[in-house]
């Protein structure tokens, strides 16, 4: 790095400019990665935390299964008899709008209906478990952060079902709203959606049968999805992921071209010096190693600074705007930063190939 470091110092203005661009791209990549992870959490953390390995939906339904599928809860008994299924229990999922009685505060919630005492019923972090009080619900920490507490009562719009808060669970959400766990019977009344006592059929509905175990052949006719595959059935999930991935992809491509273009210009500017070093007997390998070391110094330091700034911004955003779906995700962020460096080196390599084709004869005056 004899030449690389001296050139970095001598042409620090030019390198600082390029480093700033790469650093800003790194900041953007960190924020986007945090946002992508945050959006995933916000959308499907409720599904991710389900103890079921698979969900058996209504067959023949096209897309958006969580809102469109309806199955008979009685199917759970049939599923329980299928080999390799350790447990099966009905599961209800519906989005609802509710008002807190005491404060009049409006909240959007995703109501998950499960049988109290089944493997799907969550352990409360504070308060009592499902079933200890009629229509009693467990609320996600997100609602606690918004000011709700045990003892409050949520009144669901339209169906006017009253839901006393009896306990809290961790920070889980579905479709960007907080999850509320309710007993299946309560869920069925919310799902029915009209005030008063619902008809008998309303109590023969669930969204899916939650399964613990990989179903082989022999179960009832159903659309069986693994828990992970079911994320795509959450409204907007696939579109959100595709959008974020496209933005990230373009960011990487832009960064590759910025780095590549800079080193093309830089290498052309250095052409006479490269010819001189080759005339002095420097090998192409010597110059390439030197140049790649220079690229790495610039990329790694710019990316590191960008990551630090991005991390700081995520911390600030989480404090200043708690509702913003942005998460600190070290794994994906490290991957993103490594990708920035690797793609930057690839972009630069395209430029550095020129080094090998510089003719040392250029160093002689008669050929200049």
């Amino acid at each position: 790095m004899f030449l690389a470091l001296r050139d970095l110092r001598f042409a620090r203005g030019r390198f600082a400019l390029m480093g700033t661009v790469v650093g800003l791209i790194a900041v953007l990549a960190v924020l986007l990665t945090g946002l992508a992870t945050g959006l995933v959490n916000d959308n499907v953390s409720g599904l991710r935390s389900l103890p079921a390995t698979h969900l058996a939906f209504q067959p023949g339904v096209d897309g958006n299964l969580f809102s469109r599928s309806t199955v008979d809860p009685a199917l759970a008994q049939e599923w329980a008899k299928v080999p390799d299924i350790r447990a099966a229990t009905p599961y209800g999922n519906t989005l609802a709008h509710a008002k807190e009685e005491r404060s009049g505060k409006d909240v959007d919630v995703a109501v998950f209906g499960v049988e109290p005492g089944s493997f799907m019923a969550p352990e409360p972090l504070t308060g009592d478990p499902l079933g200890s009080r009629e229509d009693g619900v467990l609320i996600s920490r997100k609602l606690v952060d918004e000011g709700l507490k045990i003892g409050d009562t949520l009144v669901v719009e339209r169906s006017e079902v009253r839901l006393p808060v009896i306990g809290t669970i961790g920070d889980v959400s579905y479709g960007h709203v907080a999850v509320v766990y309710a007993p299946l019977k309560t869920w069925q009344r919310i799902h029915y959606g009209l005030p008063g006592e619902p008809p008998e059929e309303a109590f023969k509905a669930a969204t899916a049968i939650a399964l613990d175990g990989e179903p082989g052949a022999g179960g009832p006719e159903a659309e069986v999805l693994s828990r992970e595959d079911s994320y795509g059935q959450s409204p907007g999930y696939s579109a959100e992921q595709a959008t974020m991935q496209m933005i990230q992809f373009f960011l990487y491509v832009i960064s590759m071209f910025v780095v590549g273009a800079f080193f093309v210009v830089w290498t052309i500017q250095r052409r006479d010096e490269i010819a001189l070093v080759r005339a002095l007997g420097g090998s192409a390998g010597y110059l390439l190693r030197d140049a790649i070391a220079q690229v790495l110094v610039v990329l790694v330091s710019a990316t590191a600074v960008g990551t630090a700034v991005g991390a700081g911004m995520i911390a600030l955003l989480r404090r200043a705007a708690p509702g913003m779906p942005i998460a600190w995700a070290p794994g994906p962020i490290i991957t993103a930063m490594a990708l920035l460096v690797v793609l930057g080196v690839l972009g630069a390599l395209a430029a550095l190939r020129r080094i090998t084709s510089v003719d040392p004869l250029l160093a002689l005056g008669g050929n200049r």
Partner: protein
Amino acid sequence: MTAATATATGLALEQVTLEYGTGETLVTALDEVTLTVEPGEFVAVVGPSGSGKSSLLAVAGALIHPTRGRVRIADVTVSGAKAAELAKLRRTRIGYVFQSGNLLASLTARDQLLLVPHLSGRITAEDRARADELLEAVGLTAKADRRPHELSGGERQRVGLARALMNRPAVLLADEPTAALDRRRAREIVALLAAQAHERKAATVMVTHDTDLLEAADRVVHMRDGKLS
């Protein structure tokens, strides 16, 4: 000592021909050139532009293979050597002084010299001592930490000369070393080049179109249309 063994450590071109292009566009840059330079001998090659002076240096400096003929640098016959072997020969046996110094913009005067051993591997304490000794020999000890843009044209050319001597060259080649200098500085550089050639026993060839600078040379040969006379 016979003449043959003496030239085995200098520079020898035997019936060297260098041609560019083919057919109608064929250019004969060097035409059957034969030149022998003893260690410590300072030969000036004079000729107008386009007479083939730079081609002579390119061939003598292992930058290019001649079309025909033999080139021997020190005890190495260049013919048939691969590009990597030529580069090694340039690193270890040949010193170049280029027009207007041809220094690297980001390096201090001392680093210009230290680059030469670095191209071959590591810079040793001995290399550092030699760099300081050579900077002193060309009178630039006080400006060792200056970069080219902080040096005058004559100072740059003296750094270039010191750099050329860094690898203890058997062959020292100077390409119009005075092109960018005024008359007084040009004489100083040529005198310095001659003194160093004699002192360090390098077979030295300087090409120039300036016939005023020849009194320092041990021998003057003239070049015209690729031929020596």
